[in-house]
């Protein structure tokens, strides 16, 4: 095979590759078999984008400590809220931080009202009531969710927490849970 033939073959292969990539980018967002390829190209599943969020977990001395996390989210703020709360419930990756909720607590429904109030229903099959705790532990628990949502979702102004689908008098024996919580940044370690 002479050198010209090799050049022609290489040019053809390059053309096919460039054309293929162009076609894939042009059809970005298409679900199905292409999804995995697109995910490799963009780093996020089709129809989603990767965003960096700060999640808050209990740290030493009673503070909330931020943990940076990359999440795949859609444009729907409710999806972003679901992913954030899900990640908070899954627990921190840093070893010196603590879980906000015991294992087994799961996310139920999420509602984002037009006035910016987010309703988050947390569910547990084993605990009929929210975990009983000291006041700081309760505040760490509540504001790990509230601050993680309000700090990362522009539309979320305040957060109402429900337990097993029902609004509770408090969320552990201290804080008034009958009204939505606004963010409390004072718990976050500086």
């Amino acid at each position, binding site marked *: 095979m002479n050198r010209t033939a090799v050049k022609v073959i290489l040019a053809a292969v390059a053309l096919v590759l460039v054309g293929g990539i162009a076609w894939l980018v042009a059809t970005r967002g298409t679900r199905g078999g292409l999804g995995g390829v697109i995910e490799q190209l963009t780093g996020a599943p089709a129809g989603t984008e990767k965003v960096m969020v700060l999640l808050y977990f209990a740290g030493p001395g009673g503070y909330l400590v931020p943990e940076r996390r990359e999440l795949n989210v859609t444009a729907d703020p409710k999806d972003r809220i679901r992913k954030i709360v899900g990640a908070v419930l899954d627990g921190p990756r840093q070893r010196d931080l603590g879980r906000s909720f015991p294992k087994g607590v799961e996310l139920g429904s999420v509602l984002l009202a037009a006035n910016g109030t987010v309703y988050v229903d947390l569910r547990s099959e084993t605990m009929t009531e929210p975990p009983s705790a*000291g006041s700081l532990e309760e505040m760490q628990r509540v504001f790990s969710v509230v601050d993680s949502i309000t700090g990362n979702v522009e539309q979320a102004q305040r957060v109402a927490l429900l337990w097993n689908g029902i609004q509770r008098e408090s969320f552990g024996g201290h804080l008034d849970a009958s009204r939505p919580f606004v963010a409390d940044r004072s718990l976050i370690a500086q």
Partner: protein
Amino acid sequence: MISQRSPAPLLLFALLLPVLLGAQAEAPPRPSSVTLEGQEIAAQVVVGPAGPLVALAPVAEALGAKLVPGEGGSYQLQVGEAQVVLAAGSPVVTVGSDIVSLSQPVTPGPGGILVPVDLLRKTFGDLSGYTFDWLPEQSRLAISRRQAKQVPVFIDVVHLQGTTTVVLQFPEAPRYKIDQQPGRIEVRMLGDRLAPSLPPRIEDPLVEGVDATPDRVALRLLRGATAESYTLENPFRIVFDVHRPGQTTAPIAGAPTPGVDRPGIRTIVIDPGHGGVETGAIGPSGVREKDLTLLLAQALASRLAERLGVRTLLTRSGDAVLGLDARAAIANQNKADLFVSIHLNSSLGAGAHGAETYFLANRATDPRAASAAEAENATPGGLATDADPAALQDLQLMLWDLAQSRYLAQSQQLANLIQGELNQALELKDRGVKQAPFRVLMGAAMPAVLVELGFISNPDEEKKLQEAPYRARLVESLIAAITRYKEQVEGRPETPAASAPAAGAPALQTVPPAAGSPPAAGAPPAAAPAPQAPGKPGR
């Protein structure tokens, strides 16, 4: 010749006969229906195991409201002044600023969304005076207008320390809404009719007059006066505190002025935190908060009675569950002059230790509420009539129904004294005086604090808290602080810097409120030492 036919068919027929007869006797299923004052409405009803679900749109239309699709699959419904937001699949809805849990989730149906009857009761029932009766034997939802009942109301007006307090007292909570216009506030009945007592003759620097009709009670405010409202229970009262912006409305901490009917500290209610299945925090060795708070509270109550000659009451004397609202109600019903809730703390992270004392923080501390507060203060008459709807909604949130709101300065004063004594007497880390929206403090119509006497989650403090001599020292610190507070309130000769922490105690940390958390109406005046921001851990 006798035939030898098999008896099997006969036996089978005998067995099936009751079933066949039963099937014949059973009436065909009656179609479900909805009626308004006896007239049928074309509204779908689906009866499931958890009860009936009713098509909302036709019912709303028949009752004069309209269901409007909103964003993201949600729906909005305007019932009277309240906006109702609901979404298919969700078991909660918002009615105005309230969250309402439903017996069944909102369900999509072929003709629109279906809702449980309790949603109708909580919206059209509570706000528009309709009754909704599900009649299972007729498979019918009967809607009718509630018969208006006569509601007695007693009106009282008191002026004290630059604030005029107008109290509307009812034998039971009526259905009402509050309308505010410049210089005028109306409490309008929703369905019920007032039977008002004779309004008092008023000569007041802030309130021009109060008049009542069967439909409403109206307060006429003098120029520049603003009002905040809240409710009290047992009996139910709607209270308006009227003042002029810029005037001091609460006594300055350190120089408290006792109320007209409260010249001293005579009754103190001690609240042992948690109880029953609600254990509170549990220490590493299994020590339960509820057990130690009871021991501490019992000791405090008995020694306070001995030393100060005051009447002391415990909210619980055994290991029993008691709701947070009920604890404050016990204090209110017994006309307590102080409410002290005893707790032990816990933390999810390691290393937290020390004592801290809380008084109530109001909840309207987000930036939008702050802008609503600015709008309120900037508008003559104190009414944000030109503010945007969101600000007005937050303004409504600001008019919180907290009995505690008028005692914040005294509560802070007591919290300062307690924290100072704990710092002085014990080798505990000073976590400071803080504010938080603790439910147990909200309903207390007297100075009220919640004391966290150490971290049960900390092994060292858990061990100390199990030792009776150590608990006795904690109790002595609380007694010393309450004694000093009583002396200040009753005007006895006081040591210098009466409102400051006890001599030798480290100065309380003074920091501004958290970002976006400006002091709102009802917060202590600037002259009082500022508390730490809500929930801020000590360093």
